């Protein structure tokens, strides 16, 4: 009898060993996972069932189809090609260009000048006042300057960079989870570089999820792999009806669209696309994701609002050409781990004061 018990005991040990092995062999794969097929392996929660399976892939495809159709329609609407004159100011010299109205973009102008400018250009400045996306067609006669990360005062470029990072963070959050975990993106607060982290607020079908270190690493890897693809950011202005159709699967966006459209002339909504991810943003954004160099997703905080529980994804990144040693970058990462006090999903103010925070104590 005792012999039998011993055998049973050994068998049990073996079984435990096998399950442990199973966990550990999956762990590295989650770190190395590509954005294509492996979803984030949330080891504690991936076995939770009961939440409805949603086909995010199909939704994304549908959204892209609408985007493509609308883009094609707008392109055809240009009709007969008219010429505009663009005077380019700045290095290497002042130049005059004759471009196509509604077709040519600042990027095309840079292509005429030099490859170095094409690689450097993050944003364009039209008529000394308007910030213009690099891939946005020009509409009128104008003067143009290029903005880049190493300008004397790159304030606007930094801001656009931070906005782009928030946008991509949304893409990562949307992509990274397995299909049985419903993800709905809410929005991100206005970009503020000084806050130390870029943010995206997301509602997840997980309750009180605390990401492990490896989960964050997986998210960071996804972010970096998106950046490495060097995807251009396409901008499109669409009517609110099209926007409502496009984001029909996201209740938050459906709610936001009328508000956004009413504040814009022509009742339009601006959407951006990078790869197959589409999101609403006022813009402007930098030319492409290839400008992102070092990046880390540092924290996912739970935040409670009237709309329910949200997860605030936070990260920090530096542009490609800007080098910082690991100690300095570590300081930035540590700071980005603290809860960002940017606008909450249901708020109208730009900031909130979390309970028991230092700012509350000081006031």
């Amino acid at each position: 009898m005792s012999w039998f018990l011993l055998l049973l005991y050994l068998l049990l040990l073996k079984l435990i060993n096998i399950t442990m092995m199973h966990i550990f062999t999956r762990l590295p794969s989650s770190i190395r996972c590509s954005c294509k097929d492996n979803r984030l392996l949330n080891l504690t929660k991936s076995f939770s069932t009961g939440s409805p399976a949603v086909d995010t892939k199909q939704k994304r495809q549908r959204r892209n189809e609408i985007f493509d159709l609308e883009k094609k329609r707008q392109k055809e609407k240009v009709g007969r090609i008219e010429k505009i004159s663009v005077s380019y100011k700045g290095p290497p010299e002042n130049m005059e260009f004759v471009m196509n109205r509604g077709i040519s973009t600042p990027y095309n102008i840079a292509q005429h000048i030099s490859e170095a400018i094409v690689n450097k250009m993050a944003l364009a400045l039209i008529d000394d006042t308007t910030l213009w996306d690099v891939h946005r067609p020009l509409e009128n006669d104008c003067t143009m300057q290029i903005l880049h990360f190493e300008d004397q005062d790159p304030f606007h470029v930094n801001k656009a960079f931070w906005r782009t990072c928030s946008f991509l963070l949304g893409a990562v959050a949307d992509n990274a989870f397995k299909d049985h975990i419903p993800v709905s993106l809410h929005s991100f607060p206005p970009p503020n570089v000084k806050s130390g982290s870029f943010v995206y607020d997301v509602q997840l079908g997980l309750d009180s999820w605390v990401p492990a270190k490896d989960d964050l690493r997986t998210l960071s890897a996804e972010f970096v792999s998106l950046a490495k693809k060097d995807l251009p950011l396409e901008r499109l202005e669409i009517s609110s009806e099209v926007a409502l159709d496009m984001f029909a699967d996201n209740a938050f966006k459906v709610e936001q669209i009328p508000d956004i459209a009413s504040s814009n002339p022509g009742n339009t909504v601006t959407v951006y696309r990078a790869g197959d991810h589409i999101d609403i943003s006022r813009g402007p954004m930098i030319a492409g994701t290839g400008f992102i160099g070092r990046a880390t997703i540092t924290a996912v905080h739970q935040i409670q609002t009237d709309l329910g529980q949200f997860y605030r994804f936070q990260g920090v990144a530096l542009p490609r050409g800007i080098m910082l040693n690991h100690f300095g970058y570590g300081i930035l990462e540590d700071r980005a781990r603290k809860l960002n006090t940017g606008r909450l999903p249901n708020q109208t103010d730009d900031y909130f004061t979390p309970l028991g925070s230092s700012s509350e104590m000081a006031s």
Partner: protein
Amino acid sequence: MNQAEVSKLVSQLRIKVDPHIKKFRFKGGHTGRVYRLRQVVTGLFKHERIEANYTELDEARGYAERLISDAIRHGDTHEETMEAASYWLTEKQLVHKLFKVLAPRYQAYDISYTRMLKVSNHFPNIHPRAVLELRGNPYPPLFPNKNGNRNLIHNVLLEEAKKQFRAEKYEEIAKNLEEKAEAAKTETGSPSSDSDSQTGTAAQTMVEAETSREIEPKEGSSHAPKTTS
């Protein structure tokens, strides 16, 4: 052992010498080659920054370095140095420049006196090109100094991190001071220690507060929210 130390007879070059033989041919054979080297050295001392084929500059650089180090070492009264200078520098006023301007400039240098950078060549010229310059020249720098610009994104982020760190530290110090004051009150009647804490440096008070917190950890934490109201 009255032998001279051979290693110190000639001053050591502060640049890395590439031991490989370079293709470097000129009209006039060896004489033409030396003539060209003299031209380059003279040009460098005259203009302080020159662009030419890489091989020429790389070879002439050593002679320029040697001239300057000898000028610093021996001064203008040393016959051999003067002879060498007037051989390499084909213009008389540059010899004066070497002893009166460059030697004082490089007196305190502990790095090389020249700097060489590779630059791109343009089509008809297939040889690699370079720029050779004397350090401390009056021209604008070849590369902009990125670290100096406080508006660049990493500097903005670091500056804000610094501010936040300081704010946290001040808060901590203030909290410790308050804790200490509370502790002094509860002990009843020790005004001398209170005045000590005011005069003492922040570091001292922090250390003292640390010790007081160790004694009464619960009290410290319970006082913290009171300060907010």
